[in-house]
């Protein structure tokens, strides 16, 4: 018997080992897959899901599914063996009372079904409430300075409270419904035992069975019911996990709209560094109105082309079309003489030095951030880039200089520093084409000017596209496009536009004094 016990132990440990491994593998693979998928998304898909929701899907939801599977593997392997073994034994001993077993199984299934029907809709709601709580928490965490400035701590606590209360209420309902399950199961089990004895006593009286086989029958019945119990245990976790699984699946099933072409075209000789917009129109997916309408221009190698216009005129959208963060709705964008849609997407992006509107840094060190676009950049190269971006001074002031840590999201450097680092990051990459998406407005005039002067000097051959607010930033551009409600309102140099373009005149007048205007 001891030997038997030892074998059982070893077998069970093996099962545990396998189930733990399989469940963990599943979780890991799902994480890898969903992460890879999200990475492949274009900005369109990101907007569709919202970043917050994608984060929950990649973290919480996967955790749920993984937990369920850990349970399933451990239980599902046991339960049927126990259950089927029990049934065989029962049929061997006495068939006249098998209807009791059928009754037991029927009752258990009924119970589970009823509970599921009650709890399932609430389970779905539960997830949206978790999302809501996450969102509110995120908003509070990102808005701490503003909340404090307005002294709205109470208000935020109330907003959180609201989300918290609703989550708790739903949670309570769901949990309580599930609480009902165990006692009810026990009652069914015990009731069945009583029923067997009651029935059995008559059968014994009739001499159909013996007391011993009735006792055995009880044992087997328990075994069968237990195996069903185990399976229903899983059903407790099933609803929440299935909702999670669905949300994960939604992400996995979404196909990114922007694809790498199957047979990419090579850059055309003689057109290197050239950016051409050919009657480009663009509307966000699902939107009725165009953000950009019929834009055409050419930026030759080494030229500086600037975009100016009021807020919402589509300047940022325009430059986002070049790295294919979005694809044009009509017309085409050419880089190096090739439509960006037929170019290898990695080749395309490796030509670009992109500086987003909002400085985004990644955790690591200053150096690791500067090397982001060029892994093998030497210390000299990154120091050079930092110098051009006017970032060298503040970096040198830091104790650990280029090895100074950057916190997640770059929260430990100021807005202007973040912006300069993200400019330096693009410079270190030594791209053919620079895209500055309103990257200078977080800088003061002086820094802005020095930065541009140095940049111009050091990167003569690069084509530069600048989205700007300030005329002073773009005053010396080779070509200025004035955008108004997504259309080109004027194109030319500063001097030409001052004479010919009304919108430009208005902008200029608002920024420069008469004297300065005359000076030009």
């Amino acid at each position, binding site marked *: 018997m001891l030997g038997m016990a030892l074998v059982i132990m070893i077998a069970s440990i093996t099962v545990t*080992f396998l189930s*733990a491994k399989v469940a963990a593998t599943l979780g890991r693979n799902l994480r890898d897959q969903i992460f890879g998928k999200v990475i492949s998304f274009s900005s369109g898909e990101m907007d569709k899901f919202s970043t917050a929701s994608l984060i929950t899907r990649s973290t919480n939801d996967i955790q749920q599914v993984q937990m369920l599977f850990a349970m399933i593997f451990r239980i599902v392997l046991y339960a049927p063996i126990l259950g089927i073994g029990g049934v065989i034994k029962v049929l061997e001993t006495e068939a006249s009372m098998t209807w009791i077993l059928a009754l037991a199984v029927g009752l258990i299934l009924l119970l589970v079904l009823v509970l599921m029907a009650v709890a399932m809709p609430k389970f779905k709601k539960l997830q949206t409430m978790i999302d809501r709580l996450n969102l509110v928490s995120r908003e509070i*965490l990102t*808005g701490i300075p503003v909340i*404090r400035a307005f002294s709205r701590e109470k208000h935020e606590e109330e907003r*959180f409270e609201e989300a918290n209360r609703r989550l708790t209420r739903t949670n309570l309902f769901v949990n309580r419904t599930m609480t009902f399950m165990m006692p009810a199961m026990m009652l069914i089990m*015990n009731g069945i035992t009583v029923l067997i004895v009651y029935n059995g006593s008559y059968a014994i009286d009739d001499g159909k069975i013996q007391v011993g086989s009735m006792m055995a029958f009880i044992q087997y019945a328990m075994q069968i019911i237990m195996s069903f119990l185990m399976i229903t245990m899983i059903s407790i976790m099933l609803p929440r996990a299935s909702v999670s699984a669905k949300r994960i699946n939604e992400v996995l099933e979404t196909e990114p709209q922007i694809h790498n072409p199957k047979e990419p075209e090579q850059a055309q000789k003689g057109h290197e560094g050239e950016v051409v917009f050919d009657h480009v129109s663009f509307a966000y997916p699902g939107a009725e109105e165009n953000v950009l309408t019929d834009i055409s221009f050419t930026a030759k190698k080494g030229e500086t082309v600037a975009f100016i216009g009021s807020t*919402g005129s589509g300047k940022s959208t325009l430059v986002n079309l070049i790295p294919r963060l979005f694809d044009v709705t009509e017309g085409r964008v050419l880089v190096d003489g090739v439509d960006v849609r037929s170019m290898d997407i990695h080749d395309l992006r490796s030509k670009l030095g992109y500086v987003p509107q909002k400085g985004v840094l990644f955790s690591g060190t200053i150096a690791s951030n500067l090397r982001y676009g060029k892994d093998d950049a030497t210390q000299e190269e990154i120091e050079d880039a930092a110098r051009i971006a006017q970032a060298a001074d503040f970096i040198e002031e830091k104790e650990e200089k280029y090895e100074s840590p950057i916190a997640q999201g770059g929260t430990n450097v100021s807005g202007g520093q973040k912006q300069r680092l993200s400019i330096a990051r693009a410079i270190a990459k030594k791209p053919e084409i620079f895209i500055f998406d309103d990257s200078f407005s977080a800088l003061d005039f002086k820094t802005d000017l020095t930065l541009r002067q140095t940049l111009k000097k050091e990167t003569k051959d690069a084509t530069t596209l600048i989205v700007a607010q*300030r005329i002073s930033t773009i005053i010396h551009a080779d070509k200025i496009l004035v955008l108004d409600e997504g259309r080109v309102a004027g194109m030319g140099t500063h001097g030409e536009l001052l004479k010919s373009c009304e919108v430009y005149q208005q902008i200029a007048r608002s920024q420069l004094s008469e004297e300065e205007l005359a000076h030009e």
Partner: protein
Amino acid sequence: MSNKRGPMGHGGRMSGEKAKDFKGAMKKIIKYISRYKFRLILMLIFAVAGTVFNIVGPKILGKATTELFNGLVAKISGTGGIDFGRIGEILAFLMCLYAVSAVCSFVQGMIMTGISNDVGYSLRKEISGKMNRLPLKYYESRPYGEILSRITNDIDTLQMGLNQSITQLITSVTMLIGVFVMMLSINVWMTVVALLILPVSMLIIGKVMKRSQKYFQAQQRYLGEVNGQVEEIYSGHNVVKVFNKEKDVTETFEQTNQKLYESAWRSQFFSGMMMPIMQFVGNIGYVMVALLGGFLSIKGIIEVGDIQSFFQYIRNFTQPIQQIAQVSNMLQSSAAASERVFEFLEEEEEDQLAEHPVSIQGLEGNVEFDHVSFGYDPDQIIIHDFSAKVRSGQKIAIVGPTGAGKTTMVKLLMRFYDVNSGSIRVDGHDLREFNRSELREMFGMVLQDTWLYNGTIMENIRYGRLDATDEEVIAAAKAAHAHRFIMTQPEGYNTVLNEETSNISQGQKQLLTIARAILADNRILILDEATSSVDTRTEVQIQKAMDNLMKGRTSFVIAHRLSTIRDSDLILVMKDGDIIEQGNHEELLAKKGFYANLYNSQFEKVS
């Protein structure tokens, strides 16, 4: 990930790396839930009752069997028959007992889920309150994803753990005691032998627990790390794409994920291993008791029937031990989670209330900086000895190159940070004499960072003054020149800003934050790069609105565009944290110093 020390002295991930103190965490949980004393006791009573009825059950069922057996014997020997009435009675009684037991466990479950839900609820609530009392410094030194995960994942784990483990703990212990009593009543010596397995069990539980706890912590830590990466990469999605970093970030992620996987399966495995081992130990005990039982029955000390029932009780005896072992696993993950939650709740707060707070009623808004010196790190002073006097109603501009400490001045004024030495006074009262929130009521503020939340435009503007009427909100929006663009939105003022507030542009957001500040209507205004994302045509219009707004108010303006500050009463020129020049526009230009240089550089040619 870099483990180097951050500027604040500790990196973001430190919390996960700290040595975990299981006992301490448990103590904290117990202390926390002791506030539900009454309900816990009630739950205890129901749990014990439910279990006791369950323990008694088999014995009564045994009675029925005995009755049946005796009846059968009597029938065979011809002295009577089976007393169905008696059996029926016993079974009916038993059924009632079971029903009561079920009701008890159900009530117990209801109470316990209630408690654990309340624990989760109030912990979340405390965290949300705590978030508002922590110094700004706390947030600047760690990723918010980490705090977020405490609010959701950790509290969730804790809540679930509490719910299941406490119930199981109570029923198991009751079961253990009940069965122990039953066993003693049968035979003392056999009980002693059966108990011999206890220390062995304890030893094994202890060993396995120690290991699995280690992996549980690792799992929790890597989970945090994986989630942190997800948060960071998803937020910087654009940059990752354009820099062709998809492969690199995926590789890094897969590495961390692999670590998570290693610790995840190990923690699962070790916790799962406990059960089979315990079963094995239980079986050894079984054999030992069988040997002794056989010996005793040969000696005629006990009946064969007693051995049979004793075996049943041994089975019932090892079962709760196994359950306790399972519970210990759950407690471990709960402890790990609770440690992170309590750690957050125990962070040092900034004092909210002054001892003898000065009322802000009737203050005029004279601000005086008196030899102020400050550094985020006391070793690195960035503002040295700054003094200035500002009279009520003046417009003060702060200019200077990026990183000169302009925003720091504002942070000091709002008391996000306290000065290291010197003082800032409003109408002669040191800032520290005010209650923090009251002090801030005095300021209206528009920051470079345009923070809005997922709600309607109306709600977002009303944030400035919660009791404002719709008309007042619209008036403020008009003053901020936001009305036009709001009306072009699909739902006008009822347009809901989406989660990322990406359905309006950066400049439009800024207009809304300006409207919000206009509505707030405070004594002192702070405009930190308030119009940096607004196009200049709009800016001129807003400027006019602002000028109106600023009339009679003290205002501090930080701006890059020097054109917006030409008419200030006082311009403070900052460089490297110090005020190097002050005066009005003409005076400063005449000085031909740093300011004049800065001003002229706007129009310099790129040579």
